[in-house]
């Protein structure tokens, strides 16, 4: 289908262009926050959008990786690259454990289990010594990447974050458009059928879960370097809910949807920060509207519109 292929190149080009221009147009830290959450949402979308598994505990991976990166960099003197690796690895291991437990049930039970296990991570973060409890880990040094790139420079940091995001996006893209991704979609559409075709569904689910958790961890580690802070907010279930919203609003199971969703939700949070609890109310209201009237999300609607235009009028 040439039309869809063009759309994909167009989308990718727009994304890259926007990524390169952004730090000159908006506040770099804001742009970096968007990128971190965009990566987080893309990772989440791999699970919900393509495998049909609703994890309500993804904040556990974002947050724990943030803590590990912050701790290793600040207290153990790791270089930022190594710290990021440590954080991501931690999220991967955690993803393996939580995923291994959670895939024993499916549907809403899966959601409730991931939520519960993420709550364990939250309480651990609150009580363990190295996380700093309510204060979190503050003043994390950004350091020098690979011994040459000074991350204290906002522009250098920004391009590093952009590179991390593009890498994560590429991984998700490759996963979706591989035979592995096709099996994931088959599981989403009809799990018993995938089983009857001889696929080891549990292994595919677990692999998707670990991949998603790892990338969420990469986003979390990067985020802790950007803000030089790891805090309880990132492990709280509110964050798990937020990533669901980003993905849903942008478009479940679309490649660019989570990025659009993350941009909108982060922007919204930024502008409404002064209005206290109204942020929560509006977030909730968007959820309700999305579920009731707008289930395809923004990118999903655009794709559906384009498809209806390109479809032959008289079959």
């Amino acid at each position: 289908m040439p039309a869809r292929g063009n759309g994909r190149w167009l989308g990718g080009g727009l994304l890259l262009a926007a990524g390169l221009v952004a730090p000159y147009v908006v506040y770099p830290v804001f742009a970096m926050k968007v990128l971190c959450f965009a990566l987080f949402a893309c990772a989440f979308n791999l699970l919900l959008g393509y495998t049909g598994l609703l994890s309500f505990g993804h904040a556990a991976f974002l947050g724990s990786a943030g803590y590990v990166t912050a701790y290793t960099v600040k207290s153990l003197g790791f270089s930022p690259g190594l710290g990021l690796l440590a954080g991501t690895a931690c999220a991967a291991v955690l993803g393996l454990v939580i995923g291994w437990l959670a895939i024993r049930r499916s549907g809403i039970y899966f959601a409730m289990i991931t939520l519960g296990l993420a709550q364990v991570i939250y309480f651990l973060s609150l009580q363990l010594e190295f996380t700093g409890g309510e204060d979190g880990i503050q003043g994390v040094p950004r350091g020098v990447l690979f011994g040459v790139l000074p991350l204290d420079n906002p522009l250098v940091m920004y391009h590093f974050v952009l590179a991390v995001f593009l890498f994560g996006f590429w991984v998700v893209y490759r996963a979706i458009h591989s035979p592995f991704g096709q099996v994931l979609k088959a599981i989403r559409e009809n799990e018993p059928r995938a089983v009857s075709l001889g696929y080891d569904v549990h292994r595919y689910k677990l692999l998707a879960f670990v991949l998603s958790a790892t990338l969420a961890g990469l986003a979390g580690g990067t985020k802790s370097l950007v803000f030089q802070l790891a805090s309880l907010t990132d492990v709280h279930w509110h964050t798990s809910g937020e990533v669901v919203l980003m993905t849903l609003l942008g478009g479940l199971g679309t490649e660019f949807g989570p990025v659009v969703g993350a941009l909108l939700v982060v922007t919204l949070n930024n502008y409404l920060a002064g209005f206290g609890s109204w942020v929560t109310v509006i977030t909730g209201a968007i959820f309700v509207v999305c579920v009731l009237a707008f289930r395809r999300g923004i990118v999903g609607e655009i794709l559906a519109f384009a498809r209806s235009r390109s479809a032959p009028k008289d079959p």
Partner: protein
Amino acid sequence: MSEVFGIPIQAFLGQLLIGLINGSFYAILSLGLAVIFGLLNIINFTHGAQYMMGAFVAWMGLKYLGINYWAALLLSPLVVGLTGVVIERLCLRRLYQLDHLYGLLLTFGLALVVEGLFRQGYGISGLSYPVPKLLQGGENLGFMYLPIYRAWVVVASLVVCFGTWYVIERTKLGAYLRAGTENPRLLQAFGINVPVMVTLTYGFGVALAAFAGVLAAPIYQVNPVMGSNLVIVVFAVVVIGGMGSIFGSIVTGLGLGVVEGLTKVFYPEASAVVVFVIMALVLLVRPAGLFGREA
């Protein structure tokens, strides 16, 4: 004998009582979730917010209208149950044909809206609700001091739980309800108005949550986020018990409350996570839950 495993017996029994109280709340809330899930196939994430609303409606009734505790115990579930009916009619009804996950997401959104609105109106600090006159004070049992209100909470919860169990398992109405869970189309063919039944069931489940909220109001501070962490624990309770059986929900809820209370005595650091750890263990041994059927 004034010590159990090196713990003063008063502290031990005190925590046991708190555990029983929390367990009663878990039981009522997970019962409501199970009833709603049975017929609607929706996991009601708003449950915690509705528990909070129950407490708040009681508090507002007392403050603005002078409605006393006993009236609130009846009125608050009614009012909150009615809001549930409205929610079912306006929103949930549109989702029955879709994946169950959308129901979870919608009710999650609603929970955020409700919580945000109350937080905007009343702030985050707790409001206190007085213990009704009749239930003030306590009884010295010789080995421990028993506050009457707390005993009342346990008794009232058990009565409501077993009342619900009786209605569902032993009456005609309950038979319809169970039939609707099993096969709604067939039930409708027999001339039962299933959509109305579904609406009322949701209202009833929500009313149960509100009832728990009113019971909780004099014990805990009434505040907008009192339900948000609770609902996550109740989800774990539901996973542990499995939603197949009403009786199972009650037993699991009470049991876990007690276990949590005892953990507070012996290893306080773990009390916040013990329910989730048990959930993980149960998943390893019996993935369908203690009383559940493999779906």
